[in-house]
Structure formats: structure tokens, C-alpha cells
């Protein structure tokens, strides 16, 4: 017997879940890419004017 459906996610909530997840992936990518670039540039001395 199929269990009863108690609550179905509405179309707006479903769209928010899909596009919100995509936006969160983009935010994480932005963080990783910029923070990594900053770490890499810092390690070669770019952030202190190139002086080591």
C-alpha cells in the first residue's frame, strides 16, 4: 500500500531549492577561488609589494 502524501513541496519552494542550491555552489566556488588566489599570491609575496 502506498503511504499517504502528507505534504508536497510547492512549486515556489521547489524552485527556491533548485536555484538556491545553485547559488550556494556559486558562492562556495567564489570563496574557494578568491581565497586560494589570495593565499597563492600571498605566498609569493604579491600582497606585500613583492618583497620577501
Amino acid at each position, binding site marked *: 500500500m*502506498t*503511504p499517504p*502524501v*502528507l*505534504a*508536497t*513541496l510547492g*512549486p515556489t519552494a*521547489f*524552485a527556491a*531549492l*533548485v*536555484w*538556491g*542550491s*545553485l547559488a*550556494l*555552489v*556559486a558562492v*562556495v*566556488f567564489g*570563496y*574557494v*577561488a578568491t*581565497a*586560494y588566489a*589570495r*593565499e*597563492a*599570491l600571498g*605566498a*609569493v*609575496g604579491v600582497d606585500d609589494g613583492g618583497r*620577501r
Partner: protein
Amino acid sequence: MVSTELALAVTVVALGAFTVAGVLHARGRVRTLDDYVTARSTTGPAATTATLVASVMGAWILLAPAEAGAAFGGLPAVLGYAVGSAVPFLLFVPVGLRVRELLPEGHSLTEFALARYGRSMYALVVAVSIFYMSVFLAAELTGVAAALSLVAEVPQAYTAALIGGFVLLYTAYGGLVASVFTDTLQAIVILPLLAVSFAGAVIALGGAGSLHAAATSADPTLLDPTFGPGVAFGVYVAFAVLGANMLNQGVWQRVYAARDDESVRRGFAVAAVAVVPLVLLAGLFGIASAALGLTADGGASVAFFLLVVEAFPEWVALSVVVLAVLLVASSADTMCTAIASLVTVDLARVLDAEGRPLGRAGRLLTALVAIGAAVVGAQGYSVLALFLTADLVAAAVFVPFLAGLWSTSLSDRGAVAASLAGLTVGTAYFPQFAPALAALPGPTPTPSFLVAFAGATTVSAAATAVAHVVGGEGADLGALGAECRRLDSPMTDGGVAAEGGDGRGGRPTDVNGRGDGPGEGDAEADRIDGGEEA
């Protein structure tokens, strides 16, 4: 359908590019076996996040969450999978900091098990950890081989051999240093590729509204967050993922690879945030496949790829091929180096060996693991049953294992007994074992994955608490660090181990004869995050 030749060409180019990058980066950075197996104190917070996401997010995220969404309970199953995948990273923040505090010169989880408990718990942890990682590796190669066969009719043996071969090239040369660096690059490629693939899929299928309408008209339970079977799946998969990841040497290696405690905190916390939308999106496409009737013939395990073949333009399908290959490569290199590091570190202790033979053994083991995985991956076995079994054992062992980081009264026998208690309950309810148990005299429990996984963890946790309370032997946690020493055997770029000191912190001179003892400048030059000596 993507042509076989195009898919193969793209696969070779992508793998070749990362192999060259990994080898070039590792040059000059792998001086000792210690560098090879831990890449100690080299990754900042962003690189830590990137390598964790790339390592743990294998091709399984294109297979398992979609299958969960399509066949194991729709939305609640997917939500449970997504949240459950994040929990281990959050738990690793306190665990990782504690590990670094107690064993600052450590290398592996098995090293901790032996130093803290003794031989019995050590043997159990070695067996469970290697079993889980081997199954993970074989499952990854099997999964991607099946997926590329479906999308572009690439022979399964070709896919497994190509990925295994390229991964072997850079991991055998650069060990964890190469693995972490390629992981970081792969994460920077994987994240936008995933986003583009998923966004392209949503648009190709008519938008989120069309997907919603298709799902609700096909089966309203797919989008019911309270659907019972889906909730049960979400809960037990969370227990399964948690136990398995806490015994994943690949993650432990990254605790040591982190530059400092702040890198552990931020790196693992952001990784936890990152995996939730990735698993969620992958799962939603399983729901879409089920809604469109693509999984009606039993293709739930490749639900995402069925959708790719059915509804995507060729450029999206091709980007999914690259994505799948990179997802597997970044996980396969982690598992290869992790399994090899466990055995190498333990060989060093058992044989009390140093020097080049130990380094060669580490490299040989990496090769054996990669070749073995490629052979198994080409066979097209169903690895789901093995995966579930490995997860069950890990669910029973991880609480007693980790409790030793804080408890001074939990003994070797107490930890093993707690693990076995959890394993007994888990086995009794595990559906995979039901036919065998039914042959035994007497009543048998009703099979249930939920009871098996939750029971294994909670019973072992309760037994651990009892063993902690009644245990009388006081373990000296402060002395654990003395049990571990750096592995100063020369490796890829190594020369002669440095003389003097206590033999635990010395750095060897490199091939150019630079005698660079440990110091701030040296640490900076060794960074994975792009450091170059000025």
C-alpha cells in the same frame, strides 16, 4: 549521444593536464616520506576546503544521491543524504584539532589506534579502514566506467585503465603533495562544471516549474518531505556516511596537511557547507528522472546519466563526461595515497625501516592499489552490497575509536567490545545478511537498514560509555605524541636525512644540496597554496 572518440579524447586531455600539473607542482616539494604521505602543514583554509570537496565528492554524487531520489524515497531521502554528507566534516573540526594536539607528528588513523589502544583495536581499525577505502575506490571506477559507457559507449576497460593510469603517474611521483594540489585545481574546475551542468539540465527540462509539475503528477510522494521511507533512508544514510568518513584515512591526511588549526576549522566548516547543495542538486535530478519515467526499467543507479542521454544537448553531456572523470580522478588519487600511506607508515613501524627501501615500498604500494582498482573497476561489478557492508562496520567502530581521543579510561578491550556490540546489533538487522540469518535456529529480527545503521552506532556508543565508566586503566594521552615520529626517508626530491637532533624533526638536504632546516621560510616555500621560493 556523445561520440566515443570525442569522449575518449576529452578524457585523455583532462587527465593529462592534471597529471602534468601534479607532477610539476610536486617537483622539489617531496623531499621525505613524511612529505609524501602527509604534505604536513602546507594547505591554507581555501586549499583545505578545495581538497576535501574534491576528495570526498567522487562520481558517487552523480550516482548515489540520484538513485536515492529516484528509488529510495524522493525529497527526504535526498535531504538526508545532503545533510548527512556534511556532518562528518563538522565533526572533524573538533576531532582534527584534537588529533593535531595529541599527535602533532602523526600520519594516520591507524597510528593513533595503536598508540592509544593497542593491537586489537589497531587490527580492527586497519581492516575496516582499508576495506572501506578499497570499496570506495573500486566503486568510483566502476561507476564512472558504467556512466561513460552509457553516455558515449566508451568500453568500461578503457575508462578504468585511463583514470587508473593517469592517477598512478602523479600520485606515485608526488604522493599527497600532488594529490592535494590536483584536488585544489579539480575543485576549482568541478564546482562551476557542476553548477553549469545542473543549470543547463534544469533549463533543458523546461525549468524548475516543469520539473515540479512532472514530479507531482508522476508520483506526489517524490516531493513529500514527510514521506516515511524517504525519511528512514535519510536517517540511516547519515549514520552510514558519518562512520565511513570518520575512518577515511584520506580525510585524516588532510588534517595533517592543513597549515594550522585555523585552516582545519575554516577548511572543514566551508567544505561542510559546500557538499549540501552539491548532493541536493544531484538528488533532485534523480527525482526528475523518476518523474519523467526514465528509471521505470530499473535504471535508478544511473538516473542522472539517463537524464543526460535523454534530455541534454551534446555540450552539456560532454561537460558531464569531463565532470565525472575529474570527480573520479580527484577521489581516486586520494584513496590511492591514503591506502598506500596506511601500509607504508605501518611498515615503517613493523620493520623499523628507514631509507630508500621504505620510500620505494610506498611508491610500489600506490601503484598496486591503482592497478588493482582499475582492474576491479573494469569488471562492472555491483559494489552496492560491499559499500553498505563497509559502511555498517564503520558505523559500529567509529565511536569507540574516536572516544579514545578524550577518554583516559577506555581500554583496548573495552573499545573492541563496544565495537563488536554495535556490530552484532547491526548485523542482526542488516537486510543483506537476512538470508544467512534465516538459516539459523530461533527467531530472527525484521531486517531494516535504519535499525541496522542507527543500532550499530548507538549501541556501540552506549557500550563505549559503559566501558569508559568501568575502565580503570589510565591512558596517558599526553604521551601519545612520543609514539609517532617523522618519516625522514628520502623521497622524490630527497637527499640524505639530516643528522642530529632527536631524529624527528630534521629535514634532509635536497638534490641540490640545500641544507634547509625547519624554519619559517622553508614552510612558506613548501606551501601547497602556490608558494615559490623568492
